[in-house]
């Protein structure tokens, strides 16, 4: 019995949660919660994401609502400032997000309520890149994104529109999740023709080293949407 008491004391001792800020009261309610910007960002583990996460509450006409409460929750280790906030004059709620110290995909949940008390939620994926994914990201920026990313910036114009056969965005899980590590390694090393795909994809096996190619694959797996689930090993018996 003493042991049980000690155990409960130890458990409660370790369980000192951060004191939650006093709950905000919503001054208004909306009909939809949307992400304005800051989702699907790539950050490094334990760091603040480069851009703030901005959400907006709209009414059923699509007009921004001021004073609606937006709350963020996420996996353990992910930190937000603030945890809840009322939307500003533009109907927007801005959060700073600090990722947990482990690399991988983090799914945050933003929630608000409509006039009937029904919850409005939106899922926001963010990515923490470890060393390998970071290498892949750098390679992607230098070589791959010129064609695989259709978005142009003034610093870098995309080649996507000029290609007769369109490449896929690396985040397109419907394509990449069906390709095994071996398939991807083959395409990257020997070009599209090696897997009976577009010849416009050149071989990089004599340009990139093995670690760089593995990095690119790790990066593709990280940003994949829907998320990539490694086959086989990760499986729990009932």
């Amino acid at each position, binding site marked *: 019995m003493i042991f049980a008491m000690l155990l409960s004391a130890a458990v409660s001792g370790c369980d000192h949660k951060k004191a939650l800020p006093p709950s905000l009261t919503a001054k208004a309610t909306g009909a939809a919660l949307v992400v304005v910007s800051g989702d699907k960002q790539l950050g490094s583990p334990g*760091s603040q994401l480069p851009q703030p996460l901005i959400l907006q509450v709209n009414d059923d006409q699509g007009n921004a609502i001021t004073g609606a409460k937006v709350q963020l929750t996420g996996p353990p280790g992910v930190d937000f400032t603030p945890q809840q906030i009322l939307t500003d004059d533009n109907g927007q709620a801005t959060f700073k997000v600090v990722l947990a110290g482990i690399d991988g995909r983090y799914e945050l949940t933003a929630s608000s309520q409509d006039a009937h008390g029904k919850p409005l939620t939106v899922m926001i994926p963010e990515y923490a890149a470890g*060393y390998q994914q970071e290498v892949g990201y750098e390679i992607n920026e230098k070589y791959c994104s010129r*064609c695989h990313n259709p978005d142009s910036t003034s610093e870098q114009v995309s080649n996507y529109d000029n*290609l007769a056969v369109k490449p896929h965005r690396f985040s397109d899980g419907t394509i990449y999740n069906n390709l095994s590590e071996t398939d991807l390694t083959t395409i990257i090393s020997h070009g599209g023709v090696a897997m009976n795909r577009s010849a416009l994809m050149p071989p990089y096996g004599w340009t990139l080293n093995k670690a*760089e190619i593995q990095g690119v694959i790790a990066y593709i797996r990280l940003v994949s949407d829907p998320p990539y689930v*490694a086959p086989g090993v*990760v499986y729990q*018996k009932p």
Partner: protein
Amino acid sequence: MQTNNKSSFSSLKTFLCDPFRMFGVVSVLLLLLLTVAPAKDYFSQWRSYQRQYLNLIRNRSNAVTLLRHFQGGIQQIWIPQLGVIDRCQTCHVGVTESSLSDVKEQPFRAHPPIPHKLTEFGCVVCHRGQGAATTVSEAHHSKMAGEEPILPMRYIEASCGQCHHEPLEGTPKLNRGRLLLARYGCVNCHAINLPDGSTIQATDNPPPLTHIADKTTREWIYAWLKDPTSYSASSTMPNFLFSDADASDISAFLIANSTSQPGDSMAYPATASGSASDSSAGAVLYGESFCASCHATQNAAGNLVGGDLGPELTNVGTKVKPGWLMAWLKDPHTYDPTTKMPQYRWTEQQLQTLTAYVASKTDPDFVANVHLQPATQAQIAHGKKLVIEYGCASCHEITGIPKPDNFAPDLSRVGSKPLVQLIFLPGMEQSLPAYLAEKIRRPRAFGPSLHMPKYSFTSSQIEDLTTALLSFTNRSFTLPPNLQIPAVQDTNYRPAGHAGQLMANINCLSCHRINGNGGTMAPDLSWEGSSVQKPWLDAFLKNPNTLRPTLIRRMPKFNLTDSERTVLTNYIMTVYQTPAFERDEMPLSGYSPDLVEKGRQLFYSKYACQSCHMVNPNQDKGYIGPTLTTVGARLNAAWIFHYLKDPQAMRPETIEPNQHMSDEDARALTAFLMAQKTISGQGAK
């Protein structure tokens, strides 16, 4: 009551006085005491983690394999040459099991893939903490004298920097932090010596203040000292938080101390400024001269547009005197012999037009409220004292004030500074990373007598800088020297002779790299003579058309005279050649039509070059690589051949993939490309 007590006491006394009973009691006590050690061991933290681990793997499909790998008890990695005794694996049981990479809860997760083996480097070399400890609090959080707590994950890249002094692909934060240390001139005051004997060199290139009175006014200096960022958001000059009186005295001293430099100012006709046609002509000349390749200006939306090699010009008209500006545009080397700005050979008329345009970029509010009384000798003397005290000469050249030595603390080992040596602000987190970050964010909060200026870094820049600072550790000096990977240092290559003087005058090395020295904005020219054909080079220097229309930063036109161009062309063609092959080993033309046709097929089908390059502008669209419409008149055949065989060997930074081409294919493609002498559909081809 008392009797009762007394009797129980006496009975206890008789009980204990019996030696046999006493022996019995002591034996039992001893036995109990002896059980403490095994009990402590049994209930130890690491055993509990190992039990949890066994529970975790039991449910996994590869449980048998994981169980076979599992070893109970204290686990240890001992690497004497690195001074590593790490028992981390005692709790972090699955750290080498790659199949546990999906596990989110610590301490059971597999270590994410990195290029090093655990058995070769251990854990504390990167993560810090106390490797020999076997409890979480001792291993991770100990702050006792000389003991380091674990390094927070967001600064982990600092550990790579203990050995890798070159930029690494997987450590963007560390790379950025090091660039910031150089770019913002931190190393002008703080020495940073690396274990390989090199130092970090500043790249901020602060202007000399020797002739500053010719360039600007005392009012501008005053306003600038008070708040550099309100003049230019991208300024690398920090804010020294001077009082009004101090700023006034320093400006007085700098103006009084300035000597006149003959030729750094010229008569600027008052009629030259003003008219609208001039202004539009100025904008055109500014654009044609590609000033924006190096200088940024703020656009209407408040974003900076342009390069960062030279200072931001958004409000430059508020700063400089028009006469000085015109002389500067005529030849910047008169005022500052070490400037990166090239000498354009503009005509007098062009100089006036451009001066009027640049001088019209003003922010009158910046100096509007600055009204300074004429300076007294006492103020000037006080200004000089402040200039010495705040180490202005660490960055700027100032007549009569030598560059101070060891002005600020040496940061070569700042990443290992013991916590006991730090004085924390009330309420702040008591850790070295937090201290460094706060010191950069609010330097003067740590004491009113400190001279460290305040920079306007963003929080992510502060994180980058902290990461770079944390990489300068004691350990990096004690690691075996064969582990140190030095950064590639710039050579001090300067081209020689008449051409060398000319290249210094138009500052080729500001943008181009040659033989390991120079900028990285434009292509490396070390082997340019092997690469291009002489007539093309001459025409390009006369009128530099860009090969890559999508680039913002382009080669400007320097208006070289014919003889200057000849000197430059001859020098480049003769001197800048690769030892890898003979330039003329393949002919520039005369390839058989069959070979050209074979090359065409290879170009469009097997190698699909059209995805990035254009040969026929009516049909090809790719513009990642340079356009090849007239490549046969631009490049040498031997260069094309060897480039196709191994692009990175010719240009290490190129993104052109190595296609592992056979000699036969490379020759056919060379023949096809050499046939592209005029634009298809427009020439006689």
